[in-house]
């Protein structure tokens, strides 16, 4: 659909950044997915906006996948234990560190937050090392 890989990546990035600016302008909230998910789950229904944001996230994903995408997006094809272990680490880590790729990356860097810059450098670093171990040492069952 969109000719070049990087153009598509840039457009997607601008949409994500645009969403974050829009949410701050309208609702006064930071578009951090781990924070929003926590709010949606622990607020006992008091933070309806968070639930609706997540509903929108699925809607937007479906709009891409079933209307715009030239071909189906592949999910990760590894054993479920990798997904469960990795998913747990993502949940624990993003809650402990108060943010993930969106909260610290997209929003924190946009606020010129030093804390977020540190977080981004650390999680990129451990992700690089993890993928290295996975892809190039044969541990964790390979790619």
């Amino acid at each position, binding site marked *: 659909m969109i000719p070049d890989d990087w153009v598509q990546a840039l457009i997607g990035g601008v949409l994500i950044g645009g969403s974050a600016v829009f949410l*701050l302008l309208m609702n006064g909230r930071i578009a951090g997915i781990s924070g929003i998910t926590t709010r949606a789950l622990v607020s006992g229904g008091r933070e309806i906006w968070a639930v609706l944001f997540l509903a929108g*996230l699925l809607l937007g994903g479906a709009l891409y996948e079933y209307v715009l995408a030239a071909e189906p997006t592949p999910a990760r094809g590894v054993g479920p234990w990798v997904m469960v272990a990795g998913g747990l680490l*993502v949940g624990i880590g993003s809650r402990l560190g108060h943010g993930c790729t969106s909260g610290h990356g*997209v929003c924190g860097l946009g606020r010129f937050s030093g804390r977020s810059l540190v977080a981004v450098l650390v999680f990129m670093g451990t992700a690089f090392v993890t993928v290295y171990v996975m892809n190039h040492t044969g541990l964790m069952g390979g790619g």
Partner: protein
Amino acid sequence: MRSGGTALIAGALFGLGLGVSQMINPAKVIGFLDVFGAWDPTLMFVLGGAVGVTALGFRPVLKRSRPVCDGTFLVPKRTKVDVRLVAGAAIFGIGWGMTGYCPGPGLASLVLGSANTVWFAAAFVTGLLLTDRLARESKDDKKSEDG
């Protein structure tokens, strides 16, 4: 309620962006994280585009006295880099590298109907809630997120 509608729209834009940018494709993400192998730099453009927009857009928004549909802005007030931040980010990065999913793409990928995305999302939410509960019991916490 108007603020619900705007949150839904923001979420949809976000999900669409994750799709268009291919952040929801774990093979693409892992290719980007494979800096010591056949590195695929495409996703730099995602982060660049997104941060470019927030860096330009946040400042004028925060100059307003209040958001359009709410009484107050809720932005993070923490500034100190502490052990908890670094440990959390380090743990998160390991999970991201293993699965190729960070929270947004992991949840948006539920629409793909693959069992693996359900495993990821269920484990992510479990980790989030367990940590949230432990952190509350231990003490401080609560209030504003970084994200």
